[in-house]
């Protein structure tokens, strides 16, 4: 019998559908990952399963208990490690665990015994009596995971378990999670927007985008969907792409062609944010001379392609980031990619376009995400306005409807 069964779970916040008719089931002992960009609806789904948020429609059972009817039984069946820290930093590690144990009604000797055990598991025994405010980020995270396990939940929910941690700590937490899953047979649901985390940890991955499940399978099977090799072409000039793309698509050995935004997404994102802020305060200056906003020109609708224009405008404006402007990269899914590269290069040469580099790699979950959603998981440019809007609404709404 599945530990979790979700049936058409839906959550609307005003006009926005954060989670859209999501159904899935989780078997005992499984690690299921929700993979998706920020604002995709991952945390909202977890909050509904944890009875912190009431679904607009649909329902689910956790450990056989209905989330709408038996919230106490559901809460007893789960451990929840939140994305943001929820420890009392003025208490010691031991006291935080003790508080939790009492809150879940564990008897004194059981509590003491389990605290001792769990501290050993997360390797915090010798720091247990120090105040949590003296802990490092990784130690706090381990303590939160330990706390989530103290009442022996059937299912552990981990919301972005390694967000903001350094690679070593991340690796250590992954190993903890795996050990817990294997040794204690705890079913784990985690959300992440790190593909490598999902790939490393999860038995199955559920890709969520705009509140919908767009793929659900094992990491290997997901990757097998992209049989072949990824050949990545980076051009000197984005103008070459429209010419070359149809030529490549005609070749029988090219399975698919995806345009990918250039690499420097974080920089582009932050510049966009700055531009947005400038826009909000009416301080556009000479940044975007080609655009007009507001009622003056009788246009109250924000142009659809603003993000690109902003980037181009800014890039062109200060002269140093102009190359971030267009899409300069094509990803090809090719059979036996290594042998096709000379042919591809010849083809490109014939059109007169200039290649900057060519890369070859086996498909990763990043590529899978791109192929099922049409977007790069870390690239929020394509639908920038939409993403920011969703993110903001979900963030605000998340706070407003938490059930007690």
């Amino acid at each position: 019998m599945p530990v979790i069964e979700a049936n058409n779970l839906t959550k609307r916040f005003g006009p926005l559908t954060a989670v859209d008719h999501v159904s899935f089931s989780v078997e005992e002992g499984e690690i299921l990952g929700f993979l998706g960009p920020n604002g995709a609806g991952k945390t909202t789904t977890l909050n509904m399963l944890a009875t912190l948020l009431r679904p607009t429609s649909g329902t689910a059972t956790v450990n056989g208990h209905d989330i709408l009817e038996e919230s106490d039984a559901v809460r007893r069946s789960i451990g929840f490690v939140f994305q943001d820290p929820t420890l009392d930093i003025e208490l010691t590690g031991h006291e935080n665990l003790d508080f939790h144990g009492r809150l879940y009604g564990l008897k004194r000797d059981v509590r003491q015994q389990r605290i001792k055990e769990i501290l050993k598991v997360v390797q915090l025994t010798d720091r247990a009596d120090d105040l949590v405010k003296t802990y490092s980020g990784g130690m706090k995270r381990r303590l939160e995971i330990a706390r989530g396990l103290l009442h022996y939940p059937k299912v552990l929910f981990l919301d972005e378990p390694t967000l903001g941690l350094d690679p070593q700590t991340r690796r250590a937490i992954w190993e903890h999670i795996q050990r817990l899953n294997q040794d204690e047979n705890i079913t784990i649901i985690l959300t992440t927007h790190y593909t490598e985390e999902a790939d490393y940890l999860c038995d199955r991955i559920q890709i969520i985008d705009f509140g919908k499940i767009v793929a659900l399978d094992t990491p290997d099977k997901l990757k097998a969907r992209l049989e072949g090799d990824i050949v990545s072409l980076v051009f000197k000039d984005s103008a070459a792409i429209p010419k070359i793309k149809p030529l490549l698509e005609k070749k029988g050995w090219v399975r698919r062609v995806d345009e990918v935004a250039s690499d420097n997404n974080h920089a582009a994102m932050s510049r966009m944010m700055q531009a947005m802020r400038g826009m909000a305060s009416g301080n556009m200056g000479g940044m975007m001379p080609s655009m007009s906003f507001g009622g003056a020109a009788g246009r109250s609708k924000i142009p659809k392609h603003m993000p690109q224009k902003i980037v181009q405008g800014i890039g062109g404006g200060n002269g140093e980031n102009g190359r971030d402007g267009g899409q300069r990269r094509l990803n090809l899914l090719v059979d036996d990619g290594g042998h096709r590269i000379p042919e591809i290069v010849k083809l490109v040469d014939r059109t007169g376009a200039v290649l900057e580099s060519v890369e070859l790699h086996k498909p990763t979950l990043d590529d899978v995400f791109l192929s099922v959603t049409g977007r790069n998981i870390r690239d929020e440019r394509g639908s920038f306005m939409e993403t920011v809007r969703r993110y903001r609404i979900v963030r605000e709404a998340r706070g407003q409807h938490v059930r007690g």
Partner: protein
Amino acid sequence: MVQPLSGQAIYVVLLRELKRYWRAKARIIASVAQSFFFLVIFGLGLGSFIGGFGGMNYLSYLGPGIIGMGLLFGSVFSGVSVIFDRQFGFMKEMLVAPVSRTSIILGKILGGAVTASIQGIILMTVAGLMGAFTPTPALAAGVLAAVGVMLLITAGFVGLGVTIGSALSDFHAFQLIATFVMWPLFMLSGVFFPIDMAPAPLQVAMLCDPMFYGVELLRWCLLGAGTPLLGPFGWLIALGVLAGFTAVMVGIGTYLFSRVQV
């Protein structure tokens, strides 16, 4: 909206409040010292000029009022700290547990009442050592009664603090609360002067201040039933008003907390 109560949950939240209180030694020292300065500077300084009221020296008159000040500030602050729990995330840990919000907030109110009353007991001891209260056999009973009154006062004002804390989303408005809520409640509580010496409009304002009844009761407990400085009502009415205030504030605070957004 009746939610099942869990004694264990109430107790554990109370325990947390005690631990945090005990650990914040600097805060205890600061607030006791603040009240101590009032006692010394006003009690002795202003006292040497005023002398006293109705044959009682000014320090004795001031003592219960200053204890009241400690109770008031300590308990409102303790209630408002639900904002901190929210900002630092610990609230989520409590809300995802299989216990009702009512249990959590009752634990919080009880914890705030106990810690603020501990503060009151410290101040009562300090005032006693300064000679504010005449040691008689009746005083022993009075002190016990005063502790009960303290718990009643503080439970009500923690409720007020929780009400404010549930309505506010962050801590920036706290200065406003101090200026427009806590200070008037304190100054109008009859701590510095007897109500019958005040002009009529001020008397009305004082009668609207729940803290006024609390200070009256503390005075009645600590200075003896024969004290001539009681307001227009006897102790029974003062106790009734205070109990009513506490019941209403705990009710409102609990209700608002059950709807609070995390």
